[in-house]
């Protein structure tokens, strides 16, 4: 069990079937019903929106990273003008927020956070994981990034600059991790399978090829 330092409502305990609804369950229902009755939106709108949220996942970011690893022209465009590069792949980045891609190298390692709330590059990764939104991560990664990365199994020598990027405005930051060794000859699909969500936030490296 995690050692919570205060009495958190536990995000890790799903509401069980048949359990009595909590005040929050009732509040969500009350607000949703009233907004629909007032025609602020429709029940269909809501259903469609629920489906939309589920449609973006880290697999999307992984495809973009794999393409950048395979195609130097695309990589250059991704770093210079990510919105155009990604729209070229069919993603609807929308008017805002703006996407910025941060390249990790042998000497520079970016890691992304939103200390003020939970801003995250959802357009390519979907919704953020619980840990990214937690006060533990938001509090500590800016002051002790090496300690936090160690918890994720990531060790970096002092020769590598760790650059923590705090998403305080409308920019959304995605890490382009380095292509792992031993991946020569792999196609984009094989490469994408090595790209985890966590390596696009910067707390880990991509997976190494199995063989």
């Amino acid at each position: 069990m995690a050692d919570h330092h205060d009495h958190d409502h536990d995000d890790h305990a799903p509401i069980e079937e048949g359990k009595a609804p909590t005040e929050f369950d009732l509040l969500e229902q009350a607000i949703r019903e009233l907004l629909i009755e007032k025609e602020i939106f429709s029940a269909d709108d809501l259903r469609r929106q629920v489906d939309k949220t589920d449609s973006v996942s880290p697999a999307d970011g992984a495809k973009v990273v794999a393409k950048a690893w395979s195609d130097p022209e695309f990589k250059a465009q991704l770093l210079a003008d990510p919105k155009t590069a990604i729209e070229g792949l069919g993603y609807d980045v929308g008017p805002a927020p703006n996407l910025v891609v941060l390249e990790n190298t042998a000497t520079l390692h970016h890691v992304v956070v939103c200390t003020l709330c939970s801003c995250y590059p959802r357009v390519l990764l979907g919704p953020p994981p619980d840990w990214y939104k937690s006060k533990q991560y938001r509090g500590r990664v800016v002051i002790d990034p090496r300690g936090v990365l160690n918890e994720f199994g990531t060790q970096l020598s002092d020769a590598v600059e760790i650059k923590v990027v705090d998403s305080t405005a409308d920019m959304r930051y995605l890490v382009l991790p380095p292509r792992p060794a031993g991946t020569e000859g792999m196609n984009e699909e094989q490469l994408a399978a090595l790209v985890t969500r966590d390596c696009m936030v910067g707390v880990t490296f991509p997976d190494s090829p199995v063989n």
Partner: protein
Amino acid sequence: MSASFKVGQRVLVKEGDPPGHIRTPFFLRGKPGTIETIHGEFRNPEELAYGKDGLPKKPLYLVRFLQKDVWPDYGGAPSDTVCADIYEHWLDAD
């Protein structure tokens, strides 16, 4: 666009704790940094938060700080940095 600061310029984040919705993190207020990127101009979130239109747009910068300039007892590497997007009205030339 009328950005006052240039990439590479040294800046100092203002001190202060005004009321309202502020997107300049406490841990960076009063700290010295360097302009890394000029993002362009955006509506002021401090006003948008209260239903105002946030105009005129204000220049927004990615500002880079040495961790040892931010935390007195920073235990990582001397070259480690932290960056944040900060609005021009929160910055002074250093």
